[in-house]
Each structure stands twice: as C-alpha cells, then as structure tokens.
C-alpha cells in the first residue's frame, strides 16, 4: 500500500512537472499595436480569457494604462493568424476585435468592443455578424476608414455549409465584412466579399488615399490554386473583387499564412505575400495591380521565413518578417528608399531563442518600429541600422 501511494505521488508529481513545463509555452502571444495621432502607443493582447488594452507613452518601455476589455472572460483565439486587433478612430475612439472559439472545431464568432473614454472603460463585447450559426466566423480584421467608419472583415463558412447541405462542391470558405457608421454603436448586416477563399489566412486591410478601406486576402482559383484577391470594401454598394497575385500555388490545405498591405499617398499598393509554389516557400514583395501581375516583384526571403508585415512612408518601404534558423528566431528587415523599386539586403534587427507573436510594423514621426513580444515581453524594435 505504501509503495502504491508512493507511486501515485510520483506519478502526480511527474504529471504536474510535465504540465508546468508545457505551460511555460502556454501563453498565447498574439497581439496588435497601433500609434495614435498624439504619439501614444496602444497594444492589445490577451490574458487568459480576457482581452487587454494597454497604452504606452514611451514607445512600449512602460505602460501607463492597462484595461481589461471583457471583465467577463470568454474563450479567445489569441495566436498566429487569429490574434486580437486594435484600431483608432479620428476622435480617439479605441476599437478592438477578436475571434471567439465556439465548442465545435473551426467555429467562432467575431467580437467587437470599443472605448470612448481613452481606454478607461470598454463597452460590453458584442458579436459583429447577424449570423449565429455555430460555424466559422473567424480571422477577423479591423480598420477605420477616412470618414471614421469602422470596417470588420472575416472568414465565414455559411456558404460552405449551405453548399454541403445541397451536395454542391465548395472550396474553402467565404470572406465577409460589415461596417459601422456610428463609431461601433451598430453594425450593418454583413455582406459577402467573395466565395471560395482561404479558410485560415489573415485578411490584410489598408486605407487608400481616398479614405476607403481595401482588402487583400488569400483566395482560391480553379482547383485549389491559393493566390490572393483584392477588393475595395464600400460602405454599401457592390464589392468588386479581382485576382491580384498569380503564383499558382496549389494546396488543398491550410497555409496559415496571410499577406500584408500598405498603400502610399500616391495610391501604390505595396504588398507582401507567402507562397510555396513548386515546393519553394518564399515571401514576395510586389505592387498590386488587381487583374494583372503585380509590378516590381521581388523575393524577400525563402526557407524559414514567415509572417511578413510591411509599412510605407513616402518613398520609404519597410518589410519585417520572422526568419527561423537552427539557433532561434530572428526578426529580419529589408528597406527600400525608392518606393519599392529596389530593396537593400536583409538584416537581423533582433532575435530570440523563444517564440513571438507575428511582427507588426508601426510608423511614428516618419520612423518605423517593429512591435514584437518574444516570450510575451512586448517591445518596439527600432529599424534604423547602426551607423
């Protein structure tokens, strides 16, 4: 009996130790960051079942404000392509979205909350879409247009479900969006952007010079060719979707690897995207010309490179990405000073032996910083090369 008790104690201790070791990499690292027009940095991430918004007045070294968005906890997708998002309104409004897992695999609801008092309080979260089926409404993206309207786009499987019930073929999932013209008090009934798009890649949103929000996302062409589509998301009216990349990557699977988009003042659509056509994984830069091949295409990085983001300020274009090596993770950067016609050599600007949420480029006063949180420790990595 004593031996059995000892054995039991050892098993529980071993199990506990194992779980503790496992839990060391438990905290989901998904985050988003944005600068407001007074130089404050806003960061959103998660603490367990809570979305947390923090404000830093010194570029991420310290946080002067930390507010839980949803005091009543709920499940949250908080990692990888499915991270919480933050966007700022013209009058200091704070908007936050995230995807909430439901019980069944691959299901979720897109959730929204806002603060109209500078982050001191957030409204009770609400679901953005009217469809309440227990299916995929996930991979939310969030943007504010030039008039202050809030736009939310996401991946949605209602059309796949309908096709399956009707025994009709349907590849992937649809992409939907909604908008709010009253600072998030209400959202318009959702509209479809396109059918048969990718079911697991983030949607890139960016503001065009006319103030409208454009979307760039992975779509499916023919027999599981997973390239990218481009669409301006109107506040009402018809959505015009055009193919924007032509890598011809065939995959009946989940790339888990969405693109990034930034539009300069002249309307040039700078973008980066991932593909592994012909078995060669690579991140490509190009200037999108929806309907035809992107201009100025350049291979940014190859094996081990992932989750690139980009930003543009005048003729200056920055691309940041994760480069995995046998020794750890490097945060890489390439820069162009001629509007994306040519790029300098890649260089590592930070590294970690652990993991980080995907890099996010943030502009401030014509400088670029990469928001990064290796091991959950948030920081803003300057992009300037040492002289």
């Amino acid at each position, binding site marked *: 009996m004593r031996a059995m008790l000892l054995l039991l104690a050892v098993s529980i201790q071993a199990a506990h130790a194992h779980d503790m070791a496992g839990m060391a990499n438990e905290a989901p690292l998904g985050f988003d960051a944005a600068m407001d027009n007074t130089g404050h940095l806003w960061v959103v991430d998660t603490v367990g079942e809570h979305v947390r918004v923090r404000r830093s007045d010194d570029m991420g070294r310290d946080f002067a404000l930390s507010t839980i968005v949803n005091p009543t906890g709920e499940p949250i997708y908080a990692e990888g392509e499915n991270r919480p998002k933050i966007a700022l309104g013209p009058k200091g409004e704070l908007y936050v979205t995230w995807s909430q897992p439901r019980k069944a695999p691959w299901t979720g609801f897109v959730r929204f909350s806002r603060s109209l008092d500078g982050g001191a309080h957030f409204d009770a979260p609400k679901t953005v879409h009217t469809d309440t089926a227990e299916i995929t409404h996930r991979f939310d993206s969030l943007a504010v247009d030039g008039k202050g309207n809030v736009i939310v786009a996401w991946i949605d499987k209602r059309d796949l479900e309908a096709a399956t019930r009707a025994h009709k073929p349907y590849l992937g999932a649809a992409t939907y969006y909604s908008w709010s013209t009253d600072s998030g008090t209400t959202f318009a009934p959702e509209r479809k952007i396109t059918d048969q798009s990718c079911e697991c890649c983030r949607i890139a949103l960016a503001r065009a010079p006319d103030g409208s929000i454009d979307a760039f996302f992975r779509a499916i062409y023919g027999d599981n060719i997973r390239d990218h589509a481009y669409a301006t998301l109107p506040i009402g009216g018809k959505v015009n979707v055009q193919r924007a990349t032509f890598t011809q990557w065939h995959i009946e699977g989940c790339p888990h690897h969405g693109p990034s988009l930034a539009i300069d003042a002249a309307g040039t659509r700078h973008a980066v995207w991932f593909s592994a056509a012909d078995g060669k994984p690579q991140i490509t830069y190009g200037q999108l010309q929806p309907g035809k091949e992107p201009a100025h295409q350049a291979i940014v990085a190859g094996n081990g490179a992932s989750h690139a983001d980009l930003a543009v300020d005048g003729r200056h274009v920055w691309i940041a990405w994760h480069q*995995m090596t046998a020794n750890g993770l490097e945060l890489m950067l390439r820069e162009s000073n001629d509007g994306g016609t040519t790029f300098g050599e890649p260089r590592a600007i930070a590294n970690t032996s652990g993991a980080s949420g995907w890099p996010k480029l943030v502009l401030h006063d014509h400088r670029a910083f990469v928001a990064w949180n290796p091991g959950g420790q948030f920081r803003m990595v300057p992009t300037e090369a040492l002289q």
Partner: protein
Amino acid sequence: MIAWLRRRGASAALCALAVFSMAAPVRAAAPTPLAAADVGALVAAPAKGSKVLALWSLDCAYCEENLAALRTYQRQHADVQLVYVATDPMAQRDALAQRLKDAKLDDVPARAYTDATPDRLNFMIDPTWGGETPRTLVIRADGSREAYSGALTPERVAKLLEQR
C-alpha cells in the same frame, strides 16, 4: 492555439493523469511529446522502406482525410512506417487524442509538439516547409526525402511513396 482549449486541456490532463494512476480508465491513446531534442531521431532514415511523417493540426480542416489516406496506404505496405505529428502543443493532447479517436485514427503512433517555439520544430523537421498543413514528409532508407503540402488522395499517396 486556443487559450481556453489549452487551459482546459492542461487541467483536464492533470485530472485525467491523476485518475489514470488510480483507476486506469480506457481512453484514447494520447500523442507523446516531441521536443527539439527528439527531432533528430524522428527524421532519421529508416533501416528499410520509408518513414512517413504526417504533419497536422487541430485547426486544419483538411488534415483528417490526409491522415486517413496515409493510414490506409500504410496498412497495405509493411515497409512503411507512419507517424502522426501534431503541431499543436502537448497541452492539447486530450483534444488531439479525441480527434484521432473520433476519426478512428488512434492506432497510429502519434506525437505532438512540446517546444516554446513551434516554428523552430517545423524548421528542424523540414526547412523547406512554411508551416502549411497538412504536410507529408517521406524519408527513405537511403536518406532521400519527398514532401507534399495539402491533402493527399489515395492516388497521390501512392504516387508520392512510389516515385523515384
């Protein structure tokens, strides 16, 4: 991947292990942990035939059909070793085991990541892999490799395993 699932998985696993020590109930075979130090043995060339690593994740809607197609082929070819490798963390082992059990795929050796950096394991297993799933990696006795991203049909499995 999913905060609540991880937490739920971790606490459920603790309970399950404690109960197992006392009552040993029947439960689906859980994946065993795969750490960086284990990758060398995992990707080592087999003494004969082929080793097939079927990389999958809970969030991949195409993965179960791929696992099933590979299992069917393996059952008909004794010189093929098959290992399911989930890129999800071990904290989700109960969810992983249940998913395999529900799909009647729980009789194949299964591993799950246990490393602070899943992308690092991806890179160590196959540096030409961008993390997309499903991913099938074939390693032959002579050390040569073939890889395929996306769901395999039975025909594609045969083509992948038999092409030289």
